[in-house]
């Protein structure tokens, strides 16, 4: 699946359409063609070709009339299948929501429409966002565009694959413990998780409410920033959306690494080295490149990284067990067709029939952590560990502007690799959960791989609402790295 010319990013597409160098319809057809050509990768759950082309033609007509265009006018963008779009099905990757069609737009969807974006369709995900590989959803796995026998990462794997193959310039995902950044890293695209509260969660299927944010996957850092600018800002329908104006990238920051203080937590890269030396080599090389470009590398001490994974999984599953309690076959979701059951049996049967194994496991852990006799030792203690981690990260900002670490400890693993112990997969989130626990923004940027072509991501974290600093750091990586090739596709 090689291409000589990579598909255009968000800004290039918007500019080409605004200048009349390309029609929105042509950009949309190219994205739809890419989706069709690589349907075997499982990126899309459903394409809305007719709706997308109708929107694109409306953009072209508006331009022909000389009307002002929105900042994303004509830019093809896909939505993770847990973000509501009016009249589209919405499954969150679960049998539980089979047949459901959303009667309303999520706030982010509404804002994309207002910005002129062309909504392509729904992309694949792990069931309710619970997974690190996009293998637990009802639509089957998303496959890595660099090697179709390997995972795409998760849970927003469909978003990452769609962007990597040029089926849209960007995609909205959600990130509860790394679900935007991890697939971005494994598929070689940019993944931006905003600060908690930066983006409204209204209309997003809830998994873990104190951790998750809508994020952006795009071909480059400025493309992700442009989409974030369009979807962010206060929202009267979400009481956790911060009362702040929308994000605005600081163009004055440029791509200059000079003066950027990059905190490098001790032991983090070595942890990746033990899991996959190629990841550590790539991160070391990128950090050395940024240092040579004028950045200062600052050693930072952050302990209890392993406990972060435990704290995350206790808190996330506890919140999931309550959020998903609404799916009882009565108020929401699939209802068993069996008759003659008592109410309790009907609820349990409906849930067991339609939740997948991983979702059931996580509900069990979350219910356990909240139950009498275990609450203090697990849920409350996880909150204390979360506080300790947040305090430690807050202390680091005295000495650095961003923290840098691998996004994933390993490159994409094989789809047929079996994990009998679910916690072996949870360990893949070791570098990403910290930003969610602390509510901080984080960015994964592809870096050069010295080994095979499988992508590797460098992750930056920044203080709350400092996404502009992430954009600056990401631009610096891109300037050092140069252009990357397109995916080769197929088995290696």
């Amino acid at each position, binding site marked *: 699946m090689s291409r000589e010319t990579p598909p255009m990013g968000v800004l290039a597409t918007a500019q080409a359409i605004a200048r009349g160098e390309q029609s929105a319809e042509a950009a949309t057809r190219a994205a739809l063609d890419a989706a069709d050509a690589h349907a075997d990768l499982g990126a899309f759950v459903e394409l809305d070709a007719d709706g997308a082309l109708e929107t694109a033609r409306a953009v072209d007509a508006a331009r022909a009339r000389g009307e002002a265009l929105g900042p994303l006018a004509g830019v093809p963008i896909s939505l993770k299948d847990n973000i509501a779009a009016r009249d589209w099905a919405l499954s969150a990757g679960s049998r539980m929501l089979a047949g*459901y*069609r959303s*009667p*309303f737009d999520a706030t982010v969807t509404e804002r994309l429409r207002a910005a002129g974006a062309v909504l392509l369709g729904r992309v694949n995900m792990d069931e309710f966002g619970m997974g690190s590989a996009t293998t637990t959803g009802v639509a089957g796995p998303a496959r890595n565009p660099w090697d179709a026998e390997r995972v795409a990462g998760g849970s927003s794997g469909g978003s990452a694959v769609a962007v990597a193959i040029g089926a849209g310039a960007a995609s909205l995902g959600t990130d509860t413990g790394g679900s935007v950044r991890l697939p971005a890293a494994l598929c070689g695209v940019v993944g931006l998780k905003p*600060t*908690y*509260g930066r983006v409204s969660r209204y209309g997003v299927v809830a998994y873990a409410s*104190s951790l998750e944010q809508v994020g952006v996957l795009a071909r480059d850092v400025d493309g992700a920033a442009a989409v974030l600018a369009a979807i962010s800002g206060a929202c009267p329908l979400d*009481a*956790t959306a*911060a*009362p*702040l104006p929308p994000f605005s990238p600081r163009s004055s920051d440029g791509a200059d690494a000079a003066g950027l203080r990059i905190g490098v937590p001790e032991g983090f890269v070595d942890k990746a080295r033990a899991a996959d030396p190629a990841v550590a080599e790539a991160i070391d090389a990128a950090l050395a490149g940024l240092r040579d470009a004028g950045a200062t590398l600052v050693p930072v001490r952050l302990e*209890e990284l*392993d*406990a972060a*994974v*435990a704290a995350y*999984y206790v808190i996330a599953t506890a919140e999931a067990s309550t959020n998903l309690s609404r799916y*009882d076959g009565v108020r929401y979701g699939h*209802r068993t067709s069996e008759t003659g059951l008592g109410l*309790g049996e*009907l609820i*349990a*049967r409906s*849930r*067991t029939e339609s*939740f997948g194994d991983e979702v*059931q*496991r996580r*509900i*069990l*852990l979350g*219910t*356990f*952590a909240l*139950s009498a006799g*275990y609450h203090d*030792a*697990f849920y*409350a*203690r*996880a*909150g*204390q*560990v*979360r*506080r*300790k981690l*947040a305090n430690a990260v807050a202390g680091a900002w005295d000495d650095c502007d961003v923290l840098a670490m691998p996004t994933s400890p390993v490159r994409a693993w094989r789809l047929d690799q079996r994990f*009998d*112990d*679910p*916690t072996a997969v*949870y360990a893949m989130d070791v570098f990403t959960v910290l930003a969610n*626990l602390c*509510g*901080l923004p984080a960015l994964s940027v592809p870096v050069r791989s010295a080994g095979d072509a499988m992508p590797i991501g460098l992750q930056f974290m920044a203080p*709350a*609402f400092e996404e502009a600093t992430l954009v600056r750091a990401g631009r610096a990586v891109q300037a050092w790295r140069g252009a990357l090739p397109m995916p080769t596709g197929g088995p290696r």
Partner: protein
Amino acid sequence: MTVHVDQALLQHVAKLARIEVASEQAAATTAAFAAMVAMAERLADVEVGDLEPMQHPDHPYPDARADEAGAVLPPQALEANAPRFGAGGFVVPRVVE
């Protein structure tokens, strides 16, 4: 705190969670659940003193808006997603004989 995870604990938690664990799956599910609990037990190794548990990120939250009804979806939009709808309302399972 070390938790002894066995099928009895699993079935107790499953009942609370309104999940059915079939007997043929009980051994495998118990093993996976035990691994997850063992992971969570690592929290006990962290010195936390009397830190206040963090339940939400410490960011600015908006003031509560006025308690006024806003626009709502028309009944037809909601009816379309109901498993059963009749006589102007959602038809739910009988809970009182």
